[in-house]
């Protein structure tokens, strides 16, 4: 009993966010397979729970994991409200909570026990807003899904773009449940901007892209740019040629040219019937790394505060590139890449062509 170290992994495994859960779980298991399940004399045990993306379920599961299973770390968290709902539990029980997916800026502020290994939308949006004006894109229309992360993306992109001398002529918000992008894209076409900036949760990207082409926006000279969620590696290959040439900014691409990443991608797809890891997977993978290392640093003590201390300030090379956990904000600081979709050996990849180093979450700067 005393010799196990339990990680409660709460993820959406069913419903519309199910792919997030799958990727993260697979990555976490991969990390365990690669690094053994004994750390500092403790046997690591992973308990996976499905919260169906319902915040109250996430919270109850977390509560049960903490009280009944006595987990040492909570991890996972697919969507922002789930993470926010659980934060008080982390505080109350002094259990570190590793956020592997949810990307709204404010999550790390909800509890001093939150550590994030994914990314924040301000991080990636800002990078794109830096790049765009330098590349002849001045007039932009934004199109985001109408919820926390989308609004974050819109806000930070717009602020930075204006700061850089560009302008956002129209800010469109698509309902999360809005199945048809056609009218929004028609509006974009009629507005004739230089580029369209898009953030939609992973999964909806393909539809945007196809309708973008079908509506002839590309022929009208409008460029499509967006956060990496749009050209999610998970699906990129099925999107077909319409995706080629799309420029996005993100912290991870399966095509990241490093040895570590190559190994990661290969091992991941071998273990999962050829599935390509996406940015969710890397969040889970690195999250496990952060937990493992913290356990080592704390010399096998499972105590919450000791673990937390071990997590803060970790610097390491991840498949995504270099990253570190800011000791102050407990948020991830990482390189953000600009990528373009290209065809390599018959497969589509986000090929990185530029990088902005050590981007902190701009949401914390205020």
């Amino acid at each position, binding site marked *: 009993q005393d010799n196990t170290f339990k990680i409660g992994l709460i993820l959406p495994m069913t419903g519309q966010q199910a792919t997030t859960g799958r990727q993260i779980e697979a990555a976490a298991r991969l990390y365990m397979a690669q690094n053994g399940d004994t750390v500092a004399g403790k046997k690591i045990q992973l308990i996976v729970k499905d919260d169906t993306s319902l915040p109250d379920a996430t919270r109850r599961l977390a509560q049960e994991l903490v009280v009944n299973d006595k987990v040492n770390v909570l991890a996972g968290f697919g969507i922002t409200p789930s993470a926010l709902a659980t934060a008080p539990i982390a505080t109350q029980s002094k259990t570190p909570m590793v956020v592997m997916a949810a990307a709204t800026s404010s999550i790390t502020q909800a509890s001093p026990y939150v550590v994030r290994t994914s990314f924040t939308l301000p991080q990636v949006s800002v990078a794109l807003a830096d790049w765009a004006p330098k590349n002849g894109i001045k007039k932009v229309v934004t199109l985001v899904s109408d919820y926390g992360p989308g609004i974050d993306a819109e806000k930070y992109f717009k602020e930075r773009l204006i700061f850089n001398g560009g302008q956002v002529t129209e800010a469109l918000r698509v309902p999360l449940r809005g199945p048809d992008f056609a009218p929004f894209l028609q509006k974009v076409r009629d507005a004739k901007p230089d580029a369209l900036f898009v953030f939609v949760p992973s999964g909806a990207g393909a*539809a945007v892209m196809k309708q973008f082409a079908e509506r002839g926006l590309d022929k009208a000279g409008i460029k499509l740019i967006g956060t990496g969620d749009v050209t999610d590696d998970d699906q990129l290959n099925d999107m077909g040629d319409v995706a080629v040439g799309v420029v996005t900014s993100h912290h991870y691409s399966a095509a990241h040219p490093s040895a570590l990443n190559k190994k990661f991608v290969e091992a991941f797809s071998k273990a999962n019937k050829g599935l390509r890891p996406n940015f969710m997977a890397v969040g889970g993978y690195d999250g496990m790394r952060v937990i493992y290392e913290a356990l080592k640093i704390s010399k096998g003590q499972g105590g919450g505060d000791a673990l937390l201390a071990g997590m803060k300030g970790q610097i390491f090379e991840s498949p995504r590139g270099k990253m570190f956990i800011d000791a102050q904000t407990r948020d991830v600081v990482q390189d953000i890449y600009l990528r373009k979709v290209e065809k390599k050996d018959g497969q589509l990849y986000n090929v990185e062509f530029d990088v902005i180093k050590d981007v902190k979450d701009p949401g914390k700067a205020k």
Partner: protein
Amino acid sequence: MLTILFDGIAYGMLLFILAVGLAVTMGLMNFINLAHGAFAMAGGYITVLLMQRFGVPFLLCLPLAFIGSALLGGVLERTLYRPLYHKPHLDQVLFSIGLVFMAVASVDYFVGSTQQIIQLPEWLKGRTELGSGDWMLGMGHYRLFIIAVCAALTVGLQYVLAYTRFGSRLRASVDDQRVAAGLGINVNMVFLTTFAVGSGLAGLGGALGAEVLGLDPSFPLKFMVYFLIVVAVGGTSSITGPLLAALLLGIADVAGKYYIPKLGAFIVYSLMIAILIWRPQGLFVRKGGK
């Protein structure tokens, strides 16, 4: 302007094909089949898998999607649905939701939970533009294709239901199964055929709609509400009702998003509530029907 109208019509037509089977099972057969979307999903996946794995051309996939879903519907009707016709509506709801859950999990298990993407043939990818300025009409070829297919189906259906003996036998069977059978109508056969065709249409709709609406295992749950709106607003006593309702919904949805994007979903729901409070039996009921 015209483009928006055109898109709205295409979207509406698609909704109609997806929902018309439900209008028939719910309105004519008086069976609440919330699993309707699962048949649509089946059609969608049949198409995707045939195209991706076996390289079957898109046009050939459409009839196959119809037949596949119709067969599936027929088999399920015989085995599972039939005993439920005379059960209370709530039991039917429970049962069909159960089926949806099973369908969702099974598809997830066998195919995976990612969005499926269909590669259309080249000739459907283009776009034709007429006129200019405010009156410019841009027609995506695929949407044009959807409109054509759906319009043809609508006319056919309307003919069968309103002018053939099959239509009146179906309605008679629904009104009173026991007496209809006693008067020589083979109720089981009538229901089986109807159900299969309804499911087949959903499958066809799923195949056609995968491109526009996206396709993943949660499809049947995501669009259930839309189907229900079409049927509720359109009323269930005819085919034209749901058709007009679907068109209205499609156009309102598209135009709403275009002109007042901020209000998003408000438009659709407010419109629906307003209509239903104004005409509680649905917009387009047969005169004097009860």
